[in-house]
């Protein structure tokens, strides 16, 4: 395989990894705070893409305005989702909350089929995203470069929020010890809402960029990426934001490289994540960046 083709795969892998990372953060943040797998997160991602699509096609808004609106609306949707589907069950057995999450996921998907229609839709792409750049003999679509850049910006912003603001400190406190944080006067409900909002906004950013890179929208488009990104979060160490990013990149690069190195295995691309999951659970269940926790008796 020539160097330039390899480089091309690498760029593709990095941009796919960036998208996975954005989505994985949402899982890891919610899990860190509520110990809940937000099964509907992949559908939130789908919703973000569809909102951007309708803003551009039905409301004829310019692309940047559409993207902004999509991010804001998805963020609000994430907060509503938490309030309706998860908050009432906060003190219920884990199994109920998990069922509620699965139920919410299916409800959103089926509503999307009813409202948006089951047929695939083509995501409109502005020329600036589809320009073919030629860098040192390697031709790369501009969106493949834009994705990692936007992801990096979003991650820096998130890092600032989590580590250098008051609300970030409260988030960390709640994820360390829910009860103690509540007793210290932290408004746990609004912190959880904020977490869902942030996670959903990141999912929307990921979704829009996904649409730019793979411009075919279907209501079930969030299902597979959603599952894979939860796995990315587990691989990186659930509850750990840095881990989620690393997990996302491992997954994205791994998938692209498997197909690149051995085209015969391309049919098994979707299985890669799950095999990775089983391996990590066997070798280091706490994930690459995770800490071993001891359950209190």
């Amino acid at each position, binding site marked *: 395989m020539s160097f330039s083709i390899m480089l091309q795969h690498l760029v593709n892998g990095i941009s796919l990894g960036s998208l996975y990372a954005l989505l994985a953060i949402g899982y890891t943040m919610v899990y860190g705070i509520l110990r809940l797998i937000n099964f509907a997160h992949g559908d939130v991602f789908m919703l973000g893409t569809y909102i951007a699509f309708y803003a551009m096609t039905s409301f004829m808004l310019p692309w940047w305005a559409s993207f902004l609106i999509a991010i804001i609306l998805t963020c609000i949707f994430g907060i509503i989702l938490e309030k309706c589907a998860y908050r009432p069950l906060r003190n219920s057995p884990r199994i109920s909350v998990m069922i509620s999450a699965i139920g919410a996921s299916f409800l959103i998907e*089926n509503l999307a089929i009813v409202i948006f229609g089951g047929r695939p839709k083509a995501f409109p792409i502005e020329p600036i995203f589809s320009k073919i750049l030629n860098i040192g003999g390697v031709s790369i679509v501009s969106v493949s470069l834009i994705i990692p850049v936007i992801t990096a910006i979003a991650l820096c912003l998130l890092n600032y929020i989590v580590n250098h603001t008051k609300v970030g400190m409260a988030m960390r406190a709640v994820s360390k010890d829910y009860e103690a944080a509540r007793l210290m006067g932290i408004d746990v409900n609004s912190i959880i809402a904020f977490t869902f909002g942030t996670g959903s906004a990141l999912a929307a950013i990921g979704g829009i960029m996904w649409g730019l890179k793979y411009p075919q929208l279907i209501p079930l488009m969030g299902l597979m990426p959603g599952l894979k990104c939860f796995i990315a979060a587990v691989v990186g160490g659930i509850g750990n934001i840095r881990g989620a990013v690393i997990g996302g990149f491992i997954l994205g690069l791994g998938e692209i490289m498997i197909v690149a190195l051995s085209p015969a295995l391309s049919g098994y691309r979707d299985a890669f994540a799950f095999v990775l999951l*089983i391996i990590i*659970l066997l070798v280091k269940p706490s994930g690459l960046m995770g800490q071993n926790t001891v359950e209190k008796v």
Partner: protein
Amino acid sequence: MKKNNILTLISIIGFILLLLVLNITLGSYKMRIFNLCGIYVILALSLNLINGFVGLFSLGHAGFMAVGAYTCALLTMSPETKEMNFFLEPIVPWLKNVQLPFPTALIIGGIMAAIAGALIGAPVLRLRDDYLAIATLGFSEIIRVVFTNTQRITNGPLGIKGLPTIGITGQSWEIVIWTWGIALFTIIFMVLLINSSYGKAFKAIREDEIAAEAMGINLFKHKMIAFVIGSFFAGIGGALLGHLMGTIDPLMFRFLLTFNIVLIVVLGGIGSITGSVISAIVVTISMEALRILDADMQIGGYIVKGIPGMRMVVFSALLMIVILFYQRGLMGTNEFNWDWIINRKKKIQKI
């Protein structure tokens, strides 16, 4: 005790007679749905054993069903049918000429699913519960990916058509005896299992793992037992479903299938055998009945456009309502028993 056993025996015999009568009176479409009910009873009970009684949250049912369905299909089909199916790529030689009677193939299908259950259970049952959910879900997706790609064994995405009908003779009355016969067997088996010392240990694990282990219960062994039994019955259910439909393909065993079974178990009451049975029947029938929502309807001369997908919206909304507002489902963890009925009757007579 004695009296109740006699009552149970009488009602079982009555039920079998009813099956035969229904088979004559109901049309073939309705009979098909009725058979489907029986299969979903098996599936719901097997999931309920794992999720409801041991409290493990497994989402891999579709995967185990796929294993059972494919195994059984490939073992019962005649070499000619196989040749017709595998026109793109020929079937592997060691499978080509195998043809076993239906009951043997069915049991092998169940055993293969149980083996798959043991293989996936060994690494993940030692882990925390929510990892189990995602790992089993992952496993069922891997199975699907593998079945899509092993063209020479499973015929890949094309699927397999022309599965022989359920049973040995191919008569329609035999189908209902098989589906509901196995459903009945599953019910009796689960009742006996749950009431045994092992069943109590399962419930103890559900209630409090740490205390259960401190009482000398080997967590891994008991979780494994439940998981393998559940997988076995899932495989049997999957095989029956495949043969009832007549065709199978990897898409049939998507997560949606697992979701349907979770839905049945939750609506019936997690941890209630009676609830699962009733719910399996009600949900299966209403899934069929609500097909009208997806199709065009004629109301007083106007044609109301059907909305494809509306049916599943109704069911997912129903699941959300139950889990948010009425977590116990239909039966909670309660069970039907004769004493309750008899006492009830006496009470009514007094009034």
